[in-house]
């Protein structure tokens, strides 16, 4: 059990260089009908006009419940989904409009860590092959010997014994598999990582290990994270700033402690009131606020800054409360 000092999310945000700017991001999925002659009868507005900025070296939390559009936002940023409209400006270039070759090169700078360590690793590849695959695809380290040494150093860095380099994923526990996924994400030396629910499939005793590893790596390698999760307790601990998504839109966005101590939007308030606290005294006092889905459905994406850095989507619902 280790205790080291860490960057506190409560520190005021110094204006680092924006590494990523998302502007008016929209992702609609078509709803089709008909067996042979298909036609579109509507669209699911998974991400509906989302904008935010991430500064170099920070961790931004994106929270919301299932179907809120948080994962689609992460995937649209990495161009794993082609956005319907909007801009994703990463290190000064709009990923939505740059040509494919250029995007491919940019890809090495941004990586993803997935939720399910059982589904996201190819079961027929050895650990060494899984971690070296990005290097092969981008042809960044053609010398096999050099590559093997590098992969070993990556495994060591994420806390795995390089001795197991020729084993297959099934020989590893969930936590170890997530470490393999992290090693793979680090292989190309990225600047920015989208971590999509990276701990929610893991046992409680393993979650803290992975979180501490991600924080150590961030400090050491100057990484920037977009941390997508539904666990609001862990988000409070990890993130400097937090955006709350609901039905494809950001409804509230603030520095972490400001958001948790002074939530304004009725959805944020309901969400925070529902989080159980592992302390019988506090938990028996906690009172749940009922979310009312109709009361705060936002047609507009306009946001108002109610205090420095604290943005709330503008609707009648919360100003009339």
């Amino acid at each position, binding site marked *: 059990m280790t205790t080291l000092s860490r960057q506190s999310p409560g520190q005021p945000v110094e204006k680092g260089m924006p590494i990523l700017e998302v502007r008016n991001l929209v992702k609609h999925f078509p709803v089709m009908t008909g067996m042979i002659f298909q036609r579109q009868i509507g669209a699911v507005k998974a991400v509906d006009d989302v904008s935010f900025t991430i500064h170099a070296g920070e961790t931004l939390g994106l929270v919301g419940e299932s179907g809120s559009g948080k994962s689609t936002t992460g995937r649209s940023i990495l161009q794993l989904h082609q956005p319907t409209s909007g801009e994703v400006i990463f290190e000064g270039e709009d990923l939505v409009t740059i040509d494919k070759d250029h995007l491919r090169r940019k890809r090495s700078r941004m990586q993803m860590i997935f939720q399910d360590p059982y589904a996201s690793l190819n079961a027929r590849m050895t650990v060494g092959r899984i971690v070296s695959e990005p290097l092969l695809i981008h042809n960044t380290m053609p010398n096999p010997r050099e590559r093997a040494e590098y992969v070993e150093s990556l495994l060591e860095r994420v806390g795995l014994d390089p001795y197991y380099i020729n084993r297959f994923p099934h020989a590893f526990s969930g936590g170890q598999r997530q470490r393999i996924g992290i090693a793979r994400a680090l292989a190309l030396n990225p600047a920015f990582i989208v971590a999509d629910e990276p701990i929610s499939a893991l*046992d*409680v005793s*393993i979650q803290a290990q992975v979180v501490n590893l991600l924080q150590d790596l961030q400090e050491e390698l100057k990484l920037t994270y977009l941390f997508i999760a539904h666990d*609001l307790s862990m988000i409070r601990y990890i993130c400097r700033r937090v955006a709350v998504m609901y039905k494809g839109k950001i409804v509230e966005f603030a520095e972490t402690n400001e958001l948790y101590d002074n939530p304004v939007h009725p959805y944020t308030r*309901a969400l925070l009131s*529902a989080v159980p606290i592992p302390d019988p005294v506090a938990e028996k006092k906690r009172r749940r606020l009922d979310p009312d889905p109709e009361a705060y459905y936002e047609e507009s994406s306009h946001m108002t800054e109610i205090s420095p850095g604290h943005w709330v989507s503008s609707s009648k619902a919360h100003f009339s409360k």
Partner: protein
Amino acid sequence: MGVLLEVKDLVVRFYTQEGVVYAVNGVDYTLNEGETLGVVGESGSGKSVHLLAMMGLIPQPPGKIERGQVLFEGRDLLTMSPREIRSIRGGQIAMVFQDPMTSLNPYLRVGTQIIEAIRVHKSVSARDARRRTIELLDMVGIADAAHRVDDYPHQFSGGMRQRVMIAMALSCDPKLLIADEPTTALDVTIQAQIVDLVKDLKNELGMAMIWVTHDLGVVAGLTDTINVMYSGLIVERGPIEKVFGDPANAYTLGLLSSLPRVDQRAGEQRIEQIDGSPPDMRIEPKADPFAPRNPYATERCFQEVPPLHPVDDQNRDHTTRAWYDLRKARSASTDA
């Protein structure tokens, strides 16, 4: 309050192609009438398997109940005939599982399924069973129950389906409700609604409950007593305030220390992690199974399985399975 359920030295193993899985390695506890017990542990800790085993719901083979007794109102569930256990299961003991979609038959209206459950256990007319079903759906907070009773499962959301399952579980006035991760698949706002619903119903109906979960937050507000399980053993047991307020087992302490809290600012300190990996269940525990991950482990922890014993003479109801004294070990390590 009388004793409702008594589990004695329950041992369950699975004989698989990859070897023997030591799933439950000697579990003992009692549950009083009207008491709420939380069972927490990680995957493979035996928390679900021991309950499935005592309800006769593990496939045999590969599973095998090696020994033990499960006395429900003094009668051993493990030696009952299939017919006898079926009359208790779903009647006096009801169960709610994690996934409300797979627990309901998608081809049948929800009302039909609840009516069937009622009529299996009670001789009532179809009309009375339907009236009772509508009452139950109304009681679990399903609006417009008189019409919803004729809907199919897919017409309900995940949270509403779990309410239907709870209604079905309550249909025969059980003395004991066993809930196995009933809110794990649900969003946090829906989870909170279901937990509050169950709390209210429990107070109203006075039944006993066993709530199985990996979420230490959910049990904190819900249960009187808690069993913490690791490697098929209870490693700590007691009133929830004592176990959470002053844990006596290093595993419980490790779990609680590794959880950030939504109501507290993150400090400068990192969260404390439990090092190492969960135990390999293909090895029979011959020592304290948590010893390899335990910074307070003593030599004896690696040699013998410790017994579950009271923390001290003032707290006979708070027990731990440990050779070390966690309070002394912690104060010694802070002094050093």
